[in-house]
């Protein structure tokens, strides 16, 4: 064995103290993709980024898409593959919404980091060779929560130091990024995961964690999380915690997943929609009573609305006109709830108006 190649034994001792026991680590972190090839779905984006790995030339980038589609994972994996673990610290600056990101930080911290000439490449301790191109990467996670002013201040910085620093903005809503910034970046759209790739990733994790899951459970996970892989993984972990903590361990059931996800049971929703007169006529008093009891059960109003929406819109016998009237009600109620309106009043209001629309 060569003197310069590190021994495998020593790396375990030099692990910094703050690393988490892998058993307690959230699976979302544990199974974050290590290379961009591991990123589920997003073939188009990955294909483009793989090219940059070989040519080591990177544009400024803007990643956008719904939560849990792998935006942060992709850029972190890419940076890791470009620089390797040793250079990662001094070549990458990651800022997210938990850090103060006002205009003063852009002017001081980001600008200072951006203007530094990248340090010489440290010898990779794990024996692999990394491309380690001569620039640094600044990752601005959750960039849509940055203020307009702070974004404005970035404009010139991005251009001036483009030679030695590349920016990667990550956000959910591309419309909240000001136009001058967006036009400086090449945009990558991340689409919600299709159920096939979610399925394969979830079953991979399940086997790696030795949980015995049947396809029904994984399908329940996929349907409750609607394309958000992080949510699906968190639910899977919570479910396995609950099931393994009882003695003897009980198998995970699809209904457990629904309870963890805060989904209102179908029976409750069907009863409510029945009382609203989707099936037959009822009185004001019975609707009022049902709404009160729903609220006492503690279900969340937005969840009730979205599930009721599915019931009404997919209903086989209601006419198109009735469904359209209901759709209007749902839209208004959702807006009201977003504005912080009282939940009980608005569920009642939505219920009464649906009742009126369908009768």
């Amino acid at each position, binding site marked *: 064995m060569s003197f310069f190649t590190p021994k495998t034994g020593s790396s375990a001792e030099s692990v910094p103290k703050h690393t988490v026991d892998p058993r307690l680590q959230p699976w979302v972190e544990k199974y974050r993709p290590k290379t961009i090839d591991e990123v589920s779905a997003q073939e188009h984006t990955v294909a483009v980024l793989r090219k940059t790995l070989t040519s080591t030339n990177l544009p400024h980038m803007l990643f956008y898409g719904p939560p849990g589609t792998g935006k942060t994972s992709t850029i972190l994996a890419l940076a890791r593959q470009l620089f390797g673990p040793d250079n990662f610290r001094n070549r990458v600056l990651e800022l997210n919404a938990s850090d103060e990101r006002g205009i003063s930080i852009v002017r001081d911290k980001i600008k200072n980091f951006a203007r530094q000439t990248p340090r010489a490449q440290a010898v990779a301790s794990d024996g692999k060779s990394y491309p380690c191109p001569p620039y640094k990467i600044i990752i601005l*996670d959750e960039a849509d*929560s940055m203020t307009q002013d702070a974004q404005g201040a970035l404009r010139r910085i991005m251009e001036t130091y483009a030679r030695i620093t590349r920016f990667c903005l990550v956000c959910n809503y591309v419309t909240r990024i000001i136009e001058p910034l967006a036009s400086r970046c090449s945009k990558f759209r991340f689409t919600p995961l299709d159920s096939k790739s979610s399925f394969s990733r979830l079953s991979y994790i399940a086997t790696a964690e030795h949980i015995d899951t049947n396809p029904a459970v994984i399908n329940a996970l996929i349907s409750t999380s609607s394309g958000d892989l992080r949510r699906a993984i968190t639910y899977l972990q919570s479910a396995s915690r*609950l099931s*393994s903590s009882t003695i003897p361990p009980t198998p995970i059931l699809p209904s457990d997943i629904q309870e963890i996800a805060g989904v209102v049971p179908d029976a409750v929703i069907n009863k409510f929609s029945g009382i609203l007169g989707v099936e037959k006529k009822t009185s004001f008093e019975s609707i009022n009573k049902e709404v009160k009891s729903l609220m006492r*059960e503690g279900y969340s109003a937005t969840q009730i609305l979205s599930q009721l929406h599915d019931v009404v819109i997919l209903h086989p016998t209601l006419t198109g006109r009735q469904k359209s009237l209901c759709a209007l009600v749902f839209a208004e109620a959702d807006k009201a709830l977003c504005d912080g*309106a*009282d939940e009980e009043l608005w569920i009642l*209001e939505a219920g009464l108006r649906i009742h009126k629309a369908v009768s």
Partner: protein
Amino acid sequence: MSLWVDEYRPRTLDALHYHRGLSERLKSLASSGDFPHMLFYGPSGAGKKTRITCTLRQLFGNGVEKLKIDQRIFLSPSKRKLEINIVQSNFHIEITPSEAGNYDRLVIQELLKEIAQTQQVDLNAKQRFKVVIINEADSLSRDAQAALRRTMEKYMSNMRIILCANSTSKLIAPIKSRCLLMRVPAPSPEEMLNVLELVARRAGFDLPPEAGMKIVDDCGGNMRKAILVLEALKMQSPDLTGPLTIAKPDWETYCHKVADLIVSEQSPARVMEVRAKFYELLSHCIPPTVILKTVAERVVEKVDESLKADVMHWAAFYEVRMRIGSKKIFHLEAWAVKVMSLYKHFFYDIDMSAFD
């Protein structure tokens, strides 16, 4: 001598009276060592807080009961001083960020980072992490919630967060997806009656079943209120027999009076009268939403079936406006006038559809 609510509050997960399944889950989670972030939600008085303290006790033992209250000073970016009260023990810390108003993001950032970056020093501690309890999490601003997102993942080894909220509607999806959701529904009438009887027995008297039923009916699933009412009734008539009258709070009878005024006569003079009453209520710090809801419910009881839906519709409509707008009284008045005109036109049978 403390209130019965506090005196007979269950201290351990085993002592909890209802939602057995939930207690079992909490117990097994707390002892497994692999404790997730949690979000407790449910109506008020259902026992969220009691469950949280019991879980903490299960996690850390008796040490969590040694509480101290600390006043911390935070400096806002514009150099304004914010004083926040923090309840803490060696193992957990409890904050109500809505105290900080617009600056809750700052408090969350500073406090959580400080806790997250320090490790538990007490070698005898059962767990390596500290717990941060955030009360009234549904009143956290969007910014503050966004600030929580990454912190919750990054510092998982040193800290767990327990959020306590009335509803999950106002929490952003990324937070919900990082927590284990725990729904705490209100107890059923039988469960409440059971608990009331237990409290009565421990206080040294027997609860007549009729009195118990009456209290349960009146409190609508709010356990805390039920026990408080029980104590108040006991003070009024020590033997708890005969016709019991549960005293309604003043504001509630006052609201009912307003509703009666609206229904009995519809004229500009009456609007002025109602307005004065609304002002009176507002100046006594009754939340405008509560006023609107109570009055509307009373009005609905008294009007014709075909009007009920409309009355509630406008109540919901003006309630949202009240949230967005700044002057509450305008919207209360607007609603009162709207209801009066609806009522009057219903009687004289005029078609109002053109005026909507």
